[in-house]
Every structure is written in structure tokens, then in C-alpha cells.
């Protein structure tokens, strides 16, 4: 066991995946010699050579598109988009091609690729470097969307994403890259996609979140515990396909739901979760569903960013309001 940060856990998973499968190829801007701007691919070119770790020209659409060609030929490309703000030129490739290659050829061709990218705010980055485009990707049929919330989970989820048979958008919370270290067992064990993770059991209120906001959710749960309120923390982990059963099961027990995410509120992924619970769990609900989200604004420049980001206080306010509702 070694203590790893989230970005080191990503690196360990990539290394493991390349070691076990010669079809795993890494490509992206600065991923080779430089090891990636966040060092996620550090040392991989030295280990596996320039044939399997490819520095690309600055061409995001082609990075996604080349990955599709490789995947259709049976490779397992893992492409890095340097920041999620640059991923929008990949949307055409993801939406019109990667996601539907299997369907439109009736399974003759498929697209087992992973598009990794840092996402989210809280690191005082320049503009275009701090957004949370999770819901946008989750709206695309045929894609899987995964957001890890800790080094261990990043390691296991990324391995499963690479070993899978479908295209995965893997959103790495930039704020967590070096935030904390934990023991990560580099044993090659994958964490299954498509399952919510119950990180902390609780009887009174369900707090659903994912990615970096899990930190705020857990801190809020600790405060709530001192008020004799048991908050159950669910890490969605895989936004698409969604494991709604775990969320519905929790709400059936607690009767109260707080959804926390960094992305803007309107059409955010919280709306999907709220709709599921309203549709299937309404009779369990003892209080209106609470959403703690970013605002429907641009992600502001770093000096104003703290006013945008949901914080522990917001989660506590929402949970207390839910608890007080009768």
C-alpha cells in the first residue's frame, strides 16, 4: 500500500492498464515527454515508448476522433483533454460518432475509449479551466460518464472505464488532484461502473453528490452528526448510466434528499436525480427535495470564484431546512 494523491492514483491506474493490455494507448496534448500538465501521465512514455504514449498536436476534435478510429480497430485509447473547457470541440466526435458507433453498425464496430479531463473549480485557474460539464455529457446516449471523488475510487473507476467496451468520459476533479493522499492498493482491482457508492450511512437525510463536492457533503455530515442528524452520503460516481436504485433505497429510509453539485442549477444533473426521486419515491419524501448547486452564471474569474462554489454552509442550510420541514 502506498499513499497516493488522486492524480498519482490516476497515473497508477494508467500504468497498470498499459501493463496488462498492449492495446491501451495514451494520447493527448503534452501527455508524453512532459507527462501531462497535471502529471497524470508522468513516466508513461519512458516506460511504454512513444508508440503507445502519443503527444498530439493541439487538436481536440482529432484527439477524440483518432481515439474513435483506434477503438474501432480494437485498441483501448485513453485520451486526455487538457482541461474540460477545451472538450467542447470533441462534442461532435462524442455525440455523432463515439457514442453511436455500436448502435448504428448493430454492434459490428464499437468504441471502447476513455476521454479523461480535469474538471471543476476551486483551484483559482484562469477562465475556461473550472467548469463542470458533467450533465452535458450525461445527456448523450451511449456515453458513460464517471466522476471519481477520492484517490482509491479514481484508481478503481478508471481501470474499469479502460477495461470496458463503451466510450467513457472521465471527469477528474481538479480540486482533488493533490488535495489529499490516501492508501491506494495498486492491485489492479476495478471499481464497477454504474453503481452509486454509499460512503457514510445515515438514517435522517440523504445527501447525494459526486466528485469534489463529496468533500463538502462529508464535512456537512460531520457537523450534522453533532446535531444528532444522521446524514447518509451517496457518491453517484457514475452519472451515466445512473444507479437510481441506491438513491431511491436511501430516500425510502431517510425521507429527505439534498443534492449537491458544482455545475449550474438549471438542467444540472441534480435535476435528473430530483426527477427520479419525485417520480418513484414521492411517497417516501417527508420534505421538498433540496438542491445545492452552482449558480446559472458563468464560472467567475478566480477572485469571485469562492462566491460561486457551493460550500459546507450551503449544504448544512439545505439539510437543516429539510430536517425542519414538517
Amino acid at each position: 500500500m502506498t499513499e497516493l494523491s488522486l492524480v498519482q492514483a490516476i497515473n497508477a491506474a494508467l500504468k497498470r492498464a498499459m501493463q496488462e493490455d498492449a492495446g491501451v494507448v495514451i494520447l493527448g496534448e503534452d501527455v508524453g515527454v512532459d507527462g501531462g500538465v497535471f502529471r497524470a501521465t508522468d513516466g508513461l512514455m519512458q516506460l511504454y515508448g512513444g508508440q503507445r504514449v502519443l503527444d498530439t498536436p493541439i487538436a481536440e476534435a482529432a484527439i477524440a476522433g483518432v481515439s474513435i478510429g483506434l477503438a474501432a480497430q480494437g485498441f483501448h485509447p485513453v485520451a486526455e483533454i487538457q482541461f474540460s473547457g477545451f472538450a467542447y470541440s470533441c462534442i461532435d466526435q462524442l455525440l455523432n460518432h463515439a457514442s453511436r458507433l455500436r448502435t448504428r453498425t448493430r454492434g459490428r464496430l464499437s468504441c471502447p475509449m476513455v476521454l479523461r479531463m480535469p474538471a471543476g473549480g476551486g483551484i483559482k485557474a484562469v477562465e475556461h479551466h473550472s467548469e463542470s460539464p458533467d450533465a452535458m455529457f450525461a445527456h448523450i446516449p451511449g456515453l458513460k460518464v464517471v466522476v471519481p471523488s477520492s484517490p482509491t475510487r479514481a484508481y478503481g473507476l478508471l481501470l474499469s472505464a479502460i477495461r470496458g467496451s463503451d466510450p467513457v468520459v472521465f471527469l477528474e476533479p481538479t480540486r482533488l488532484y493533490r488535495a489529499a493522499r490516501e492508501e491506494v492498493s495498486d492491485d489492479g482491482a476495478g471499481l464497477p461502473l454504474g453503481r452509486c457508492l454509499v460512503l457514510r450511512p445515515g438514517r435522517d437525510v440523504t445527501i447525494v453528490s459526486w466528485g469534489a463536492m463529496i468533500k463538502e457533503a462529508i464535512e456537512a455530515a460531520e457537523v450534522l452528526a453533532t446535531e444528532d442528524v444522521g446524514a447518509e452520503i451517496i457518491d453517484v460516481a457514475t452519472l451515466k448510466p445512473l444507479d437510481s436504485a441506491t438513491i431511491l433505497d436511501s430516500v425510502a429510509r431517510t425521507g429527505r434528499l439534498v443534492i449537491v453539485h458544482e455545475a449550474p442549477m438549471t438542467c444540472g444533473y441534480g435535476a435528473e436525480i430530483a426527477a427520479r426521486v419525485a417520480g418513484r419515491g414521492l411517497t417516501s419524501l417527508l420534505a421538498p427535495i433540496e438542491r445545492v448547486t452552482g449558480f446559472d452564471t458563468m464560472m467567475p474569474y478566480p477572485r469571485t470564484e469562492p462566491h460561486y462554489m457551493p460550500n459546507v454552509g450551503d449544504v448544512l442550510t439545505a439539510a437543516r431546512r429539510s430536517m425542519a420541514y414538517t
Partner: protein
Amino acid sequence: MADAAFANSSTRVLDPDGKLVGPLPAFARDPGELVRLYRALVLTRTFDTKAIALQRTGRLGTYASSLGQEAVSVGTAAAMQPTDVLLPSFREHGGQLWRGVTLKELFLFWGGDERGNDFAGPRADFPNCLPVGSHAPHAVGVALAFRLRGERRAAVCVIGDGATSKGDVAEAMNMAGVWKVPAVFVINNNGWAISVPLAKQTAAVTLAQKAVAAGIPGEQVDGNDVIAVRSVVEQALARARQGDGPTLIEAVTYRLCDHTTADDASRYRDDGEVSRHWPAEPLVRLRNFLTQSGIWDKSKEEALLQECRRAVEQAADDYLATPPQPPAAMFENVYADPSADLIEQRDAAMSRAQGGT
């Protein structure tokens, strides 16, 4: 600083009358091979005629004709090995047929059925690409896969003249050049992108010169001369297989048809222009050459037309007799394994289709 080379070569073997104006490549010295090419052109046009007839009578979806451009597609495919991969745009019916896509599969695709993309023949070929030019990067990925595995295979991507304005195509050619992957980009320059003529598409004198910026060879070929097309694509493929990297080929042809059956070209294009281009079309050219060479005559022509018509009619009948896929098919192949949501939605769709609620 090194000088960039802007002169593009242009290849033609037969002139519009079918007269030999250049050296015959090796394959073209085999009369059987020439007849095979001619048959492919005729079959493509026969399919085209039937497809339009079916569309006009409500039995096929919107269809993109390849009238006048058959030689680009057939010549390109004829240059390829079966193990190469074709990444077509959407007028490559001729090339697809050459490579073993069946007439029925073509009818199914244009008739609105995904099974038309489940080619029984060329299993690794890509399906048609309607978002213009967005398949060019796929060709680089496929070619990269071949190189990584050390295979002597190549990817061939066909795009239209309009696609050369797209960033995807520029990104793909640039990347292919950097990595020297075995890819060949063929432009079917038919002069029109729906209503936009080439002069409004680009200020570039040729489309082949777009290769210069990517640092790869670019050349023009008479796209109505199937022998010339096959010859230049063969040479590009030979370079690709030797590890000499990608090539851009601009096949200059003309769209004698509307953009698709949903288009009315008379809104933006002078009929006189179309008439002026008819004498250069590819079928008559090769037929004249075959006739002048003593390989072809009226009775062979009649027999070929009959054979093609029979094959197309049979395939159309097979297509029309094929029932649509059941609603459950929508939910298959979204993922390798369906999610809980998809299973639930599938059951609901099936229940609705069976008259339930």
C-alpha cells in the same frame, strides 16, 4: 527556410472521348480488369436510378445520388486491398459495392435501417458519415492502429469538396502528416456543396494544395477517369504501406444530380452548366475506350445492363420484403450491456408496440 511546393500534379489517362492520353497503368492492360471496373460503374448507376425511383414513390428515405461521380468511388475502392479500411462520406455507393457491401445493405441504409451498416463483407469498414468531414480523424486512428500493429494496411477516407473547409479535416491531415500514418484522403470534388459552388467554398486554386500545409503530398486526378483514379490511389496506397505516410488526392468530377432527393438544384444552379458537364461523365468515357479497344460491343453492353438491372431489382425486392426491426432493437447496442434504465425503457417500448400502455 525550405520552400513550400505549390505545384500539384494532375493525372488523366483517358480523355472525355475515351482516347488514351496517358500511359496505361499495369492493371488497365488486363481487359478483364477494365470490364470489371466498367461493370462496377454501371451497377452503381443502376442502383442510383432505382434508389431515386424508390424514393420518389415513398419507398426509400432521402437519398444522396452519386450520378456522374461513380469513377471517384469505384476507382478508389478498386485501388484498395480487402484488408484496408474505407471510411466513406455518403456518395461512395460504388466503392462500397466494390468492397462487398451488398445492394440490399445499401437499400436498407438509405431506407432507414441500421442493419444496412452491418456489412456482411468489409467488416472493418466504417459506415457512411453524414456530419461532413467528421470522419477524417477516424481514418488517422484506424491508420495509426495498423502502424502500431505493424500491419501493411491503410485507411482510405473519402470526403467532399465542402469537407475541406472543416477543421476536422485540417486537424486530421495535419496529425496524419506528423505521425506519417498509412492514410489516404480522397476528395470527391464535385464542384458543389449543396448550393455552394467551389468558388464560394475556398479561395484556394486547388483542393489538393491543402496538403501543402499538412506537409503531405497532394495531387489532382481527373475524377471522371476511373483508370486514373485507381492508378493515383494505388500509388498513394503503395507509399502508405511502405511507411511513407499519407496523401491527399483531389478527384475532380461534377455533381450531375441534385445534392440529395430532398434538394432542387435548379434553385441555385444553371441547367446549362450541368449540360456542359455531361459529355465528360465517367461511364461513356470508359465504354468508348473499351469499344475502341475491341473489348466491348452492343450485345455485351445490353447483357451487362440486364444483369445489373436484375441484381438491383432483386436487392430492392429483398429490401422491401425485410420487415423493420422490432422496437427492442433500439435498445440493443447502446452499450455492450444494457443499463437498468434501458431495460426498463425497452420493456415499455415493447409493451406500447404490442398495444399495451
